[in-house]
């Protein structure tokens, strides 16, 4: 199978994720869309790794997963505390940081 198809798939996934981040209000969904984008990136890295025949891309993909795992922990903690304080997970409600 032609590895370029994986790149198309990754681009599709990234666009879906980006659109989700921009148009959804629910923090959990936004968060999931971010994960989608991250994994789209992983997919490109792995695909390129395959195309070029070296392992650099796969190694970076592992790094991304580790960092993403850490990010999930922090991000979910923030979302939980946000929900506790204002009983809503809408990102538009958290708009106090403006003039």
């Amino acid at each position, binding site marked *: 199978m032609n590895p370029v198809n994986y790149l198309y798939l990754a681009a599709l996934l990234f666009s879906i994720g*980006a659109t989700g981040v921009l*148009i959804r*209000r629910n923090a959990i969904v936004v968060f999931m869309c971010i994960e989608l984008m991250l994994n789209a990136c992983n997919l490109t890295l792995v695909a390129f790794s395959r195309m070029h025949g070296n392992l650099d891309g796969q190694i970076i993909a592992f790094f991304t997963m580790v960092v993403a795992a850490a990010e999930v922990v922090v991000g979910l903690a923030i979302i939980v505390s946000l929900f506790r304080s204002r009983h809503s997970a809408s*990102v538009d409600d958290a708009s106090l*940081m403006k003039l």
Partner: protein
Amino acid sequence: MENLIALLIAAPLLGAAVLLCGGRRLDAVGQWIGTLLSFASFAFGVVLFADLLGKDPEQRTLTQHLFSWIQVESFQADVAFRLDQLSMTFVLLITGVGSLIHLYSVGYMEHDERRRRFFGYLNLFLAAMLLLVLADNYLLLYVGWEGVGLASYLLIGFWQHKPSAATAAKKAFLVNRVGDMGLSIAIMLMFLWFGTFAFGPLLGGEGEPGMVGDASEGKLTAIGLMLLLAACGKSAQVPLQSWLGDAMEGPTPVSALIHAATMVTAGVYLIVRSGAIFNAAPDAQLVVTIVGAVTLLFGAIVGCAKDDIKKALAGSTMSQIGYMVLAAGLGPIGYVFAIMHLVTHGFFKAGLFLGAGSVMHGMNDEVDMRKYGGLRKYMPVTFVTFGLGYLAIIGFPGLSGFFSKDKIIEAAFAKGGTEGWILGGCALLGAAITAFYMTRVMLMTFFGEKRWQPDENGNEPHPHESPKVMTIPMIVLAVGSVAAGFLFNWQSSFIHWLEPITGHDHGHAPLSAGVITGATVACMVIGVAIAYGQYGRRPVPAVAPRGSVLTRAARRDLYQDDFNHVVLVRGGEHLTRSLVYVDHTLVDGVVNGTAASVGGLSGRMRRLQNGFVRSYAVSMFGGVAILIAATLLMRAV
């Protein structure tokens, strides 16, 4: 012997310190401390003079190195004194006349409660003036130069409760600053071009040529003109003359000491001392002679129209210093005569001022000569001493002014060529006008009918002779006015005395000395005759008549203040006003405009911070998209 030189200055300096810091305790005896220390300085001067006389004429330069003052690499200034024939002459004049005037002031200032301070200032003046003439380099001379300026300021404004005196003091100080600027520039130029400002290496002496001998004429002309500017400020020469008339607001002994006999002659000293520079810069010399000739006529014309006895004498001082500056500009032909006239003038003009002070003392401080008249009956001693000073200044044959002024007129003619005729003609005309205005002063004050009236409080002045403490100095100065010229000319003693320092040259007179002397005497007689016709044979009106255009102009000092006001004050005001305008519009406009536009821009920018995470995310995505597009585009190109 050299060690005595510092004591000359130290004595009056000690007096100034004691009197000014001593406080009220010294109020009762302050005047005697000041007078005593002044006489002590005179005594040191006489001892040194006797010592110099005992030496060979070529060996008569004593120097005393006190300490190294400023030392930065090649910049070296020492506190060192030089006593030679020129400074010795000044030392005797300053301490001699100064001591007499101290004595006179004891009587004159008897009823002034700030008397102690007055004597402190007088001593300060003596110390500064002695420092000026004894300094061995221009920088130390500058210290003395500023010191006399300060003392002059303090003494002109001594009666500071009078607004006119306070203003006059400020005016004198400001005008002097202009001249001082010239001196400081001259010193800077000397250091820049020669690396030194000490007299010895710079000007030479004792057979050694100085550095100025090898310098280009342009440099020396520049330095010479700056020195002339300094001399103009201190000696009230055109165009910096306007302060001297107003300086008469000070107490009369101050006018006699500072504004007639000593300080105002510092400019002449500066020019004669810097003779080596001027000798090598004929253009600068020419300007000096022109300034002298213009001032001698200017001062004389002003002196003719003044009704205030002190201002008439101030005009005369200006005119007589014009003679000295003229002579100093003639080079070696005139240096000796400039100094000779300076000394004789020191005697007779100080005497005249002290006489004027004595008259004012007896007339309830009235200065208007139109309210005097017939005072010779009431003040015989003042009349006789003033009369002798009068005969000396108009150049009555045999008296001191005759010898010195006649020599200057001869020297002016001896300059040669058209210049010689013009300068000599000016000097002769000046002699006639001098005779006119001095005769006028004499006739209005001491002759005719009494013209004084009771003032609005009904106090009629009771003219009376002044106390002995005032008349004795007047008598001594009158004797000096009579005898000095004869002594100086006896076997040309004064020329031989100064020649090793200033050099002397007879020049080429187009006329014989006898003819010039005859012309001088004739001019004097004409001046006296005109004045007698106008003020002696007719009664003097108590209110000044309107007078001719020239009289009215001369009464206003030939519009010197109006000129200064229009050109300098108005000009300065316009300049500052336009600078303020530029500051307000341009500078402030740029500064305020920048601040306002930054403020406005940030006001707009702040709207971008709407607090919605998703709009921030849009800008991030947009930004990244643009960056990627740009990168791809660059690649494609």
